[in-house]
């Protein structure tokens, strides 16, 4: 079997069993990148030398028994909004085009401690603002299933890199669906954990109260394994939660008997592609056949999730992005005569149009006279949305639905109509507003051969239920990759 086809945990096992060396695996994936990266553009920064050097170090650690993690020696890609000491971290923005952090984000540190080999930093929508990876200042990433289509976003580079086997797994961040939606478009598995499960320290903030780091991988086992490695309380992040139930791999059990699954009627009503609806409902039947109990119900306030999300996320973003001013690091406009001119020019030239749009929206909803009408009202709706989920979880173990209304759109289609792009987030954003965990996994392809994503949403701290159900579905579904799907046809 081709070395590249292994999942992260399979490769970890082969490395541990000395069937494959870390160097071999790293070289194989670097060769793959060499062949396909020009076509897909998954990465902003590649660190071949660093990866090979790290591979040697990690091999020693494995050999002398100091590195025992299932991820030891497995090459990983990191979304470019997580700080990596000494390695360019750009958020796919011109304004951070030359930014080399002095420290490493907590989640990446945890992977490093587990013996991960970091290949580089993946492309994304600028500052994670976008759903297609087309707002990147460094050009879009292409969907490896069909390069005329987008990979989704904002963690499009991470999702595409996993799908294209340009890495074994990747880290992404999810503020309104930015892990789950690209996972869905690229036919891989992606999970956003409960808010506070993974430290945000070193994650360059978009919407601080919504941002959460999570894994993207080839299967559910990889997701559980990586999440187990990066979860944990961090005293450097005040919003980080102390939890003792982060042994996520213990939930990899093929058993959904008696599990109650709620299916929101609104998620299948209007605006959803027939193929998507069909594949997702078919997936629900698979779980039903395995013993799960399905029930349709009405989830309230679905249509308010989008305006609520864009009000809160943009308000926080407008403040979070103030630090990019040309003073301390990053891009500074040339030939400025005074301070405010430097601020204006650096920010005007450094930020792309989508980021500027959101900064303006966010500044507006926080300005005096509008704060109560927009920002405060959005917080109230957020609380109501959370309440709606609480009620649902008093009846159901989880909620099942699509991850996005459509499969991956064509390149260039979305940016011309931002409202349509925002509407594409309808199934994912309320999960962030309520701080819940959500997982997206492939459940087939549409008529054009593009993957469809199934989303499972759980109550806070109930990742394990999601992992269990996703794992059970995956066992029934069988292998799902670009090659396996093409072979089947």
């Amino acid at each position: 079997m081709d070395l590249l086809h292994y999942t992260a945990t399979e490769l970890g096992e082969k490395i541990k069993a000395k069937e494959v060396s870390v160097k071999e695996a790293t070289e194989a994936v670097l060769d793959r990148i060499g062949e396909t990266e020009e076509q897909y553009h998954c990465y902003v920064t590649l660190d071949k030398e660093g990866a090979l050097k790290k591979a040697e170090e990690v091999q020693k650690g494995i050999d002398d028994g100091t590195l025992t993690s299932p991820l030891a020696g497995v090459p990983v890609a990191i979304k470019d909004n997580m700080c990596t000491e000494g390695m360019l971290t750009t958020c796919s923005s011109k304004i951070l085009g030359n930014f080399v952090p002095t420290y490493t984000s907590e989640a990446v540190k945890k992977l490093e401690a587990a013996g991960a080999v970091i290949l580089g930093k993946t492309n994304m929508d600028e500052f994670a603002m976008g759903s297609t990876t087309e707002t990147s200042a460094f050009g879009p990433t292409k969907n490896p299933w069909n390069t005329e289509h987008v990979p989704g976003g904002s963690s499009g580079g991470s999702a595409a890199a996993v799908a294209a086997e340009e890495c074994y797994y990747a880290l992404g961040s999810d503020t309104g669906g930015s892990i789950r939606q690209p996972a869905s478009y690229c036919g891989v598995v992606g999970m956003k954990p409960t808010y506070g499960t993974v430290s945000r320290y070193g994650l360059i903030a978009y919407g601080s109260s919504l941002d959460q780091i999570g894994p993207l991988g080839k299967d559910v086992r990889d997701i559980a394994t990586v999440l187990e490695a990066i979860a944990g309380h961090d005293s450097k992040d005040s919003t980080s939660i102390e939890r003792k139930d982060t042994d996520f791999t213990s939930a990899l059990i093929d058993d959904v008997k008696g599990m109650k699954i709620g299916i929101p009627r609104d998620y299948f009503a209007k605006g959803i592609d027939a193929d998507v609806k069909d594949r997702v409902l078919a997936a629900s039947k698979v779980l039903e056949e395995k013993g799960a109990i399905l029930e349709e119900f009405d989830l309230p306030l679905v249509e308010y999730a989008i305006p609520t999300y864009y009000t809160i996320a943009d308000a926080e973003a407008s403040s979070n992005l103030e630090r990019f001013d040309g003073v301390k690091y990053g891009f500074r406009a040339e030939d400025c005569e005074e301070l405010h001119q430097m601020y204006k020019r650096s920010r005007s030239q450094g930020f792309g149009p989508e980021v500027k749009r959101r900064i303006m929206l966010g500044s507006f909803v926080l300005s005096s006279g509008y704060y109560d009408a927009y920002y405060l009202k959005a917080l109230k709706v957020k609380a109501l949305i959370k309440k709606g989920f609480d009620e649902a979880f008093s009846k159901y173990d989880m909620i099942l639905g699509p991850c996005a209304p459509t499969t991956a759109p064509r390149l260039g289609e979305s940016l011309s109509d931002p409202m349509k792009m925002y509407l594409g987030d309808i199934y994912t954003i309320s999960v962030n507003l309520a701080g819940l965990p959500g997982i997206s996994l492939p459940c087939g392809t549409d008529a054009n051969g593009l993957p469809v994503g199934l989303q499972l949403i759980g109550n806070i701290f109930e990742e394990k239920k999601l992992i269990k159900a996703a794992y059970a579905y995956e066992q029934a579904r069988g292998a799902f990759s670009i090659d396996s799907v093409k072979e089947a046809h």
Partner: protein
Amino acid sequence: MAKEYETVIGLEVHVELATKTKIFCGCSTAFGGDPNTHTCPVCTGMPGSLPVLNKQVLEYAIAVGLATNCDITRYGKFDRKNYFYPDNPQNYQISQLYLPICRNGYVEIETETGTKKVGIHEIHMEEDAGKLIHDEWEDASLVDYNRSGVPLIEIVSEPDMRSAEEVNAYLDKLRLLIQYLGASDCKLQEGSMRADVNLSVREKGATEFGTRTEMKNLNSFRAITHAIEGERERQIALIEDGIGVTQETRRWDDTKGESYAMRSKEDAQDYRYFPDPDLVPIVVSDELLESIRKKQPEFRTEKMARYKEEYDIPEYDIEIITNSKRMADIFEETVALGAQPKKVSNWLMVETLRLLKEKEMDPADLRFSPEHLAKLIELTEKKEINSSVAKEVFEVMFDEDVDPQAYVEEKGLKAVNDEGALRKTIEEVIANNPQAVEDFHNGKEKAIGALVGQTMKAMKGKCDPAQVNSIIRELL
């Protein structure tokens, strides 16, 4: 007849808290490091860094709130105040607007006209900014983030003060309360206590407030007094001329003795305050509140009353000693070591005050230890050194906190208790000063002073002048 005006004053006082580390990171708050050496990703606003509240800051803020009779907010938040300036690395300051930690308090002040309550509107916690240094030669500005993230509390009074005297009494009251709490050293000159004065005038008897201005950059009690007087006159002149007062922020220039407008209400910025999503709500539990309440120290008023009861020292001394927490601590600890209260008080009132004045120092910076002062008093009581040597030793103690015993021995300053040697010297002095002897015999009492002086000089001061005096009388 000229109209009579009343001045209405409210104060915003910033106090730098005496924590070892900054409000949202573990960096040192110590003064004097090289630029940007007390910094980390958090206090330099690096992308991805996050704030974590230093619990000591919360405890100090609550302690000050309790000392000023405030309601403590049991569920509070931090808010972001957004504005662009290079000394503010995130371009927002983490402060409190919506739910400040303390509200609705008051302090009692005493002035010549009597006792009065000044209301405290609120106290909130916030972070200090860095420091900009403008390099004229290079045509560049540099920024030092060592002060960025140093914890501050801002104490906002009600507009309850009516004169510079009341303002000074209020500031002095705050200073004493906070110093006694150990929450800050509250030095106006060094900026650990800063006051902005909001001032308006109105005709006596009016019920509506006039238009106010805010005066910044006041770093001494003197500057505050001058600024208040100057601003009152300026506003009255504007009103009398029919121009009226503009609501604006003004900067006081103490060397010129005048203020100038910084910005008016029209260009007031919209700070777009909103709760900081990186920080969790501040929940003050019953336990925390109770533990801080229990730790509240004896404040000045109670201390003065106790001193009157316990120590036989003049009321004036009590007032001076308790006017500084440091001095009161030295007094009590020295007395606890067995020294006589009156003697301790004398050292503080005379030599200590003299040296403080001479060296332009704040009593908070007194360095000598109670142990050494007690020992010095003991040495003089045992007549091991005389009073002039004691003063000499004290001066060294004041500067370097030396052990007086060791110092006296090292420098050979011990009084000579060998009466034989002393008598021999006195005999020589008498023999060498026939004129003085004769004067004494002729009834000139003063002449004995000259003989004592000569003896002290010959003994290099290491003898007791009273003893010398009595031996001379005996010999003559």
